């Protein structure tokens, strides 16, 4: 049984020998070049699309139930229908800011197959009559920026982008921009602010979708890199074919980035809905289980913002509905696996600190609350915890995200799951995301907190099971 089948030129990607919709070229070393792309069917879907009417393409994508891969999982075809008529110009914004903790799949798509993404953008613009496309790439992803820039130059030269694309009436320009390294610009309205040259801070909702009022006040479709990378395949092969993969509600494949204490961490293209967490974390074609000699303690199922799961949730399918009902989300497709050597409080602190540092500073509860949470956790870890700290942490959390916070069931304590999503006193979900590690760990591992707070010798976490 192979423990390694990493593709050397696509570090992080693991070929799990399943159906390939967006990673089909990852096996080629030169997959990012126009030459390789064209040799393997690249831009064929664009030609196919241009032979059809825009409405046909749109309805194909709607039929396919192409779910957004940025975090919210909203069906692209339906979002595309929110554009108000007669408010020219319309824009497409590609969210390539991927910075959710544990998530690194958009980066691979941009580095390995920029032409696929560009083709998806062009088809989307054609299908919706969008006049300009803005590709926004995370500040730190230098290679992705370079590859996309190169690909754009090639595509312009080849006549795929620009005026009268492939001799048709269809014209569109694609602009590449990149961020300055702030997580919050992944939030679509903050991204739009940043594109406009402002400080990246989320806008107030409503309007709930930039489709109504977006970039420069114009109707704007914002989609994730992976979402758009699916569009050429759907166009070329049709919704029916697409739906032969995955489940009925979550058709197709989806990229999952698994990190942490598994034998073979990496990015996998997985059939959604029918694959379970257990398949993915333990399957031979996938992560091959927890590293030897250790057991699963907990895992973050959908990017750092997701409430944590445990052993009991392993058999849930990778599908939004059941995962949401179980108290978390698939979010950005980043799974962080932690085994029994992990200190729950430390792990929580690590994620909380991320949100504290990345808060944009706009709303009081997030700006002040996340840092306060971080400092209390740090104090507990430093052995300065107070008995009231646990309740206080939960109360601070409640002031950021009022009411019961989504959390997984805990059969041992006879506690039910609280379903997703959380409520918020803030403008965007970043502040409430900081609550997930806290409520998840306090509910499950309160004794670890208490052990640190009462200044007893810490229980060696690896031996914890034996103790309890």
């Amino acid at each position, binding site marked *: 049984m192979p423990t390694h089948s990493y593709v050397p030129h696509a570090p992080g990607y693991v070929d799990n020998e399943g159906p390939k919709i967006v990673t089909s070229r990852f096996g080629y070393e030169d997959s990012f070049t126009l030459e390789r792309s064209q040799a393997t069917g690249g831009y064929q879907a664009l030609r196919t699309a241009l032979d059809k009417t825009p409405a046909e393409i749109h309805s194909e994508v709607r039929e396919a139930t192409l779910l957004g891969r940025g975090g919210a999982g909203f069906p692209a075809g339906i979002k595309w229908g929110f554009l108000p008529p007669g408010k020219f110009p319309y824009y497409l914004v590609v969210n390539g800011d991927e910075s959710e903790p544990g998530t690194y799949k958009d980066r691979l798509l941009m580095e390995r197959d920029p032409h696929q993404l560009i083709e998806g953008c062009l088809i989307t613009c054609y299908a919706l009559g969008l006049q300009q496309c803005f590709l926004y790439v995370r500040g730190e992803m230098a290679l992705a920026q370079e590859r996309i820039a190169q690909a754009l130059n090639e595509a312009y030269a080849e006549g795929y982008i620009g005026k009268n694309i492939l001799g048709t009436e269809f014209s569109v320009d694609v602009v590449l921009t990149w961020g300055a390294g*702030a997580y*919050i610009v992944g939030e679509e309205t903050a991204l739009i602010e940043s594109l406009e040259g402002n*400080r990246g*801070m989320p806008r*107030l909702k409503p309007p709930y979708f930039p489709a109504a009022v977006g970039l420069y006040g114009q109707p704007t479709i914002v989609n994730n890199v992976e979402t758009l990378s699916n569009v050429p395949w759907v166009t070329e092969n049709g919704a029916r074919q697409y739906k032969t993969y995955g489940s009925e509600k979550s058709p197709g494949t989806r990229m999952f980035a698994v990190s942490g204490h598994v034998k073979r961490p990496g990015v996998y293209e997985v059939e959604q809905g029918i694959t379970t967490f257990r398949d993915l974390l333990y399957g031979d074609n996938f992560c091959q289980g927890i590293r030897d000699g250790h057991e699963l303690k907990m895992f973050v199922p959908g990017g750092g913002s997701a409430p944590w799961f445990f052993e009991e949730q392993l058999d849930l399918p990778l599908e939004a509905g059941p995962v949401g009902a179980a108290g978390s989300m698939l979010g950005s497709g980043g799974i962080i696996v932690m085994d029994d050597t992990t200190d729950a409080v430390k792990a929580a602190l690590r994620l909380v600190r991320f949100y*504290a*540092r*990345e*808060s*944009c*500073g*706009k*709303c*009081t*509860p997030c*700006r*002040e*609350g*996340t*840092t*306060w949470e971080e*400092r*209390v956790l740090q*104090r507990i870890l430093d052995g300065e915890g*107070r008995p*009231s700290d646990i309740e*206080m942490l939960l109360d601070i959390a*409640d*002031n*950021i995200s*009022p009411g019961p916070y989504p959390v997984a069931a805990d059969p041992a304590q006879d506690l039910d799951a609280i379903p997703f999503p959380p*409520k918020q*006193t*803030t*403008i965007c979900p970043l502040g409430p995301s900081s609550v997930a590690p806290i409520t998840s760990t306090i509910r499950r591992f309160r004794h670890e907190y208490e052990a640190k707070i009462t200044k007893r010798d810490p229980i060696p976490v690896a031996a914890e099971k034996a103790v309890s």
Partner: protein
Amino acid sequence: MSRADEAETVNVTVNGAEIEASPGELLIDACERAGAYIPRFCYHSRMKPVGMCRMCLVEVDTGRGAALQPSCMLPVSDGMTVETETDLTKKAQDGVLEFLLVNHPLDCPVCDKGGECPLQDQTVAFGPGESRFVEEKRHYEKPIAISDTVYLDRERCILCDRCTRFANDVAGDTLIHFMDRGNNTQVNTFPDEPFASYFSGNTVQICPVGALTAKPYRFKARPWDLEETISTAWTDSVGSRITVQSSRNEVLRLLGVDADSVNWGWLSDKERFAFEALNSEDRLGRPLVRDDDHQLVATGWGDALDRAVAALQGAAPERIAMIGGARLTNESQYAWAKLAKGVLRTDNVDSQLGDGLPVEAVLGLPRATIDDACRPGGTIILMGPDPKEELGALYLRLRHAVLEDGATLIEITPRAGGLTGLASHSLHPRPGELPALTAALVAAVNGEAVDTAGVGGGVIAAAAAALDGPVTVVLGRASLAETGESVADAAVNLSRLDDVSFLSALRRGNIHGALDAGLSPGLLPGRTTLSAGSERVGEVWPGLPESDGLDTAGILAASAEGDIDVLIVLGADPINDFVDHAAAVAGLEAAGTVIAVDLVRNDSIEAAAHIVFAAAGPTESSGTFTNLEGRVSVCEQKVTPPGTARPDWMLATELAHRLGADLGLDSPESIRAELVSVSPVHHNLIEEALAVGRIDGVLVEGNGDIAAPVSTTADVPSNDAYSLRLVSTRSMYDDGVALRHSASSRGLARGLDVRLSPTEFDKLGVKPGTIVKVESSCGQLLAPAFADSSLPAGSAHVPWSAAGSPAGSLIDAGAPFIDVRVERA
């Protein structure tokens, strides 16, 4: 919005009680009307809501279940149910306040905001009783000076975005921003770029904590020691409403009052901080007379008044003159007008210093209010000074009208100014050629446009095509090197446009009150002329002048010829303020006796006054003020004047008394009553109306008997190839008397320079900043030279500065335009 829409209302249930609200009204305001005050920090009714502080969260149900929503962001909708006092709401408010306090320093005992601090007040009313935060608070360097007047203490800042929104959105000075993120988010300036905004004081006023403080008030008082009264700002003619706050008989702070028709609560820094001059050491507390050694020495009132009477008694009416008066209240202006014209019977009376407009252009054209000018969908033609430099609060209103309400702005100005970026068309005609350009613009509305006054025909045609809706001309004297008659002629041309009215942009304090009081040659109180008003006014006054008198230029010229025996200088400094420096010096020096009435010793007093009356200043006497719209508002006395200084009107009655006449005026109220009795236009200026219009004032409308101006100027020849035509405009910090005596504003005056259109600059062949010589037929100066691409070809700009009047030394008051030569020094 159509009438029908306006009439429509929606029903909202606030804490169980149904109220009516207008569609679009924000929930936070609707609840406040319903008696349910929702706490807030970032919301400010004059700025776009941002929903940042989250203090105003309340439980709202719009049919999809109750949820916490920021009420400052939510427009009311029909059937909305709001609960402002549920446990969930209270917990959220408690939580937000606790969050705001975790890093807030315990500065209250030493914080200027203590006692009037929304954070203190709302913590008491809505916040938690105890702190659970045991960690060390966030620290920053305590206060950093972000400009010459404003200090920022970032530890106290709660990041409400009010100051930054004001600076960026309202004032357009994008100089302060949020920086960094997370818990380190802070307001700051860019390195090396101070918060040098003419409007910076507003940020201090709206900061809900003590993060922003202004130098003049820092550590001066505690709010509970302050007394306040309403008044009107006096440093320009906008008539911004203010509260005057004092402690122990000293004015310590002015705050803007939100008068819907005027300043919306905003003030320029000049309006806000100029009160410092009133408290300055240099204030006159006693009258002065010139002794045998030609020194000004203090004396008693009896002596000073007797000397003045002696001088006046020996003088024939036509040998008496009075210039100035815009500093005074309406009541004092009336009293002095009655003394000069009614008792002394001279019509050599002028409140303008050669820097204004013919009165017909101000009073004789259809008049507009600020609200008229700012009408959504209307057009503003700016043919006057840069409002940002001269009429700060009006600038903010105009800016808002263009940016937010869709008004169109067309500029006809000598060079680019503060509103240029917002103008749909900017026309910069050659100096002296305003009449030609406006004629061409009017002609272009109906036909073809040809190149005129250095402006291309295409540009003129485009501007004409942009005229939309009702037109308001903001009319004033942009360049002091171009005559008021030229501007008046241009106004006559523009008066031919459809649906047009005029908003005066004369800048000097209460100049519009002075004109309404008749402080101008040929005028009598109540927008009437010597001939038309003589019967009405003559019934009440002891006498009247026999014929029309001289304006300031005429008075100074006559004086220089030895024809003026007594010259009364009523709160003016002609040496620094009259457009023609040499003429002012000559006229003052040659006058037989110069009687000055003022607050401080200015250069004209030092040079020429024989008798100086110490007058009470703004805040030291009661009365009313007339702004550029003709709006009359009250100015209440707050403190006593220094020493034995007296209100101006009292000095007039005292002089009259000693001259054997009784003005019959014994209080500001009695003066107003008499004004109403002689002036039909002032008919609504009754005490009841002033009480009702305590905030917005009372608009005095109509042209009275003043006819529209008639064209007077001839075509202007173009300048020869060796000379450039002079432009001279004012800036906010012009080194005027008030500013020179304000500690915080003193250093802000810009230096002198000369700016040339780029072609001319290139011809000169020098590096930017090189000192060059500028010479006109009457004087010269040395100044560094720079290029200015907005200046029309063939012109040069020298800023007007009051100190020493350098530009005034180049200007000949009688000339329709000034040609200068600019040469390497």
